[in-house]
């Protein structure tokens, strides 16, 4: 039981939680503004991870630099997907009636394309590189330097994103669109511009998470899927469209995962995650923090 109270598990929870929150925030932004279920979200994590991996192993570029490249590329990809695929679906009366289910199918197609293109180009072999892997001791917890960097960057970006959405004019417009679609339009908010921005922001955050993850984990074409699942669990825990909820939900899921595995065994990790997922969906589909309206 001593080990449960040690700083080690807490540090692990924080690192995983910050990454989860970063991925989930982007997913929720896209869901909130457009009601699209981006099942390809985890694959953007994979793309970001590959950008940093190749940057480091081919040109010894630090992942802290290449993460900006990854974010820019992913944001461009997001805007392209919005313009080519999504705008059409949002404008078609037949498709928009069941936009969630249809978006799920479209993004599943996108996900399959991204994963297999990566497998075709980079082979399915997992890859890794060593960067900042010396160990630092803080109190009784030991943490490798790269994990500390991951934690700090992810946390700073999450907080910055939340502040941006709460304080800036554009952020307010995004939140207005999430809360009251029609009223937001009446107040002069252009949904088109916000949609494009949400795609760029959400995709960039996922790619940033990927760049960070590549420092501490192996990179492979199919690494994204667990992050998609985690992000879905989190935004349902925190409430669909509730951005602050994603931040809390990220740390909550990380805690459940880390401590749950410590109490049982690693083989129960997936059962635990899906168990929480089903329980929340069945009993509290509006999320743990309630409040937010749910389109049921």
């Amino acid at each position, binding site marked *: 039981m001593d080990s449960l109270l040690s700083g080690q598990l807490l540090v692990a929870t924080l690192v995983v939680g910050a990454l989860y929150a970063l991925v989930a925030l982007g997913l929720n932004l896209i869901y909130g503004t457009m009601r699209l*279920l981006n099942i390809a979200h985890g694959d953007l994590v994979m793309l970001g991870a590959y950008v940093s991996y190749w940057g480091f192993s081919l040109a010894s570029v630090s992942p802290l630099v290449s993460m900006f490249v990854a974010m820019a590329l992913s944001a461009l990809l997001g805007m392209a997907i919005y313009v080519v695929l999504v705008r059409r679906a949002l404008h078609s009366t037949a498709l928009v009636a*069941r936009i969630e289910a249809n978006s799920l*199918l479209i993004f599943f197609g*996108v996900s399959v394309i991204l994963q297999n293109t990566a497998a*075709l180009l980079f082979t399915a072999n997992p890859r890794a590189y060593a960067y900042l892997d010396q160990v630092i001791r803080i109190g009784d917890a030991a943490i490798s330097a790269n994990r500390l960097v991951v934690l700090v960057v992810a946390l700073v970006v999450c907080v910055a994103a939340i502040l941006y959405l709460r304080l800036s004019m554009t952020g307010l417009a995004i939140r207005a669109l999430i809360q009251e679609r029609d009223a937001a339009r009446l107040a002069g908010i252009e949904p088109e511009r916000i949609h494009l921005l949400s795609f760029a922001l959400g995709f960039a955050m996922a790619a940033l998470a990927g760049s960070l993850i590549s420092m501490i984990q192996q990179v492979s074409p199919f690494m994204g899927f667990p992050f998609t699942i985690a992000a879905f669990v989190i935004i349902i825990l925190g409430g669909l469209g509730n951005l602050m909820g994603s931040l809390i939900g990220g740390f909550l899921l990380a805690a459940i995962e880390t401590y749950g595995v410590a109490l049982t065994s690693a*083989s129960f990790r997936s059962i635990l995650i*899906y168990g929480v*997922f089903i329980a929340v969906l*069945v009993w509290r589909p509006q999320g743990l923090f309630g409040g937010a309206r749910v389109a049921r």
Partner: protein
Amino acid sequence: MTRRRLAAATAFLAVVALAALAPFLLGPYLVGVALDLLMWIALAESWILLSGMTGYISLGHAVFFGTGGYVMVLAWGVLPFWLVVPLGGLVAGLLALAIGYPCLRVRGPYFVILTFGVAEFAKFVVVAIEAGLGKAGRLMFGAPSLDELYFVMLALAAAAFVIADCVRRSRFGAGLRAIREDEDAAETIGVPTTRFKILAYTLSAIIPGMVGTVMVLRSTYFEPLQVFDPLISFTIVTMAIIGGSDGAPGPLMGAVFLVSLSELLWANLPEVYMILLGALLVGFVLGAPDGIHGWIRARLARRGA
């Protein structure tokens, strides 16, 4: 109309009779391919009972396939083959009944991701059970011959097609399609929506359960990650969407199309096959949401008018 129905029924019987000749005419490799094709037809036809008719997309139909497979594994050597096949269907149907009530209370995106979550949950539970029993994959000795499995699968595929067609034309089917168009309105005019949805979900699980029992014997070994593979669920959805999910001919066309594509590409260029699969799914959802069958029907209607 009745004459057209009679002609369609005759054509259907002729196709089934022709398919029944396959083991006598083709070599084992092609019989294997035909078996795979029949498997996908049976799965996709079953899937549209709920998801095509009501629009409640199930992204977790692999759970019924896997359950059937697991029933066969547990009963193998205890009960005879011909008894386990319907038993697998029964267990899968009961499972659908049990999870249908909580799952079908939630609508739209919640239902879709919930079905997926339930399927993955079941997969990892079976993995944990097998690990607890100390089994890492099981070999199935003394399985029936390929030809026997083929005939059973042909019967299942034909049954799935007939059920889908009958449901589509029945009052029950009309009720299900009313739910798809507007659930609240359907409820108002007296469609028992909850009962219909659960019934359709259960019905759509039974044949996949039976298909699972047969396919686990075909592969002669059992590995939970393989029979509960989410790729099975996704392939079913893709076939039904590409072929068209509002009526029995659609999934058949989708299955024939994708199995042919997979035969051409899977062995040498699996990534290219998957990329094409993704592109086709995106293209059909955006450009032809009624699938190949819907597109053909629209063309014929235009020519007739």
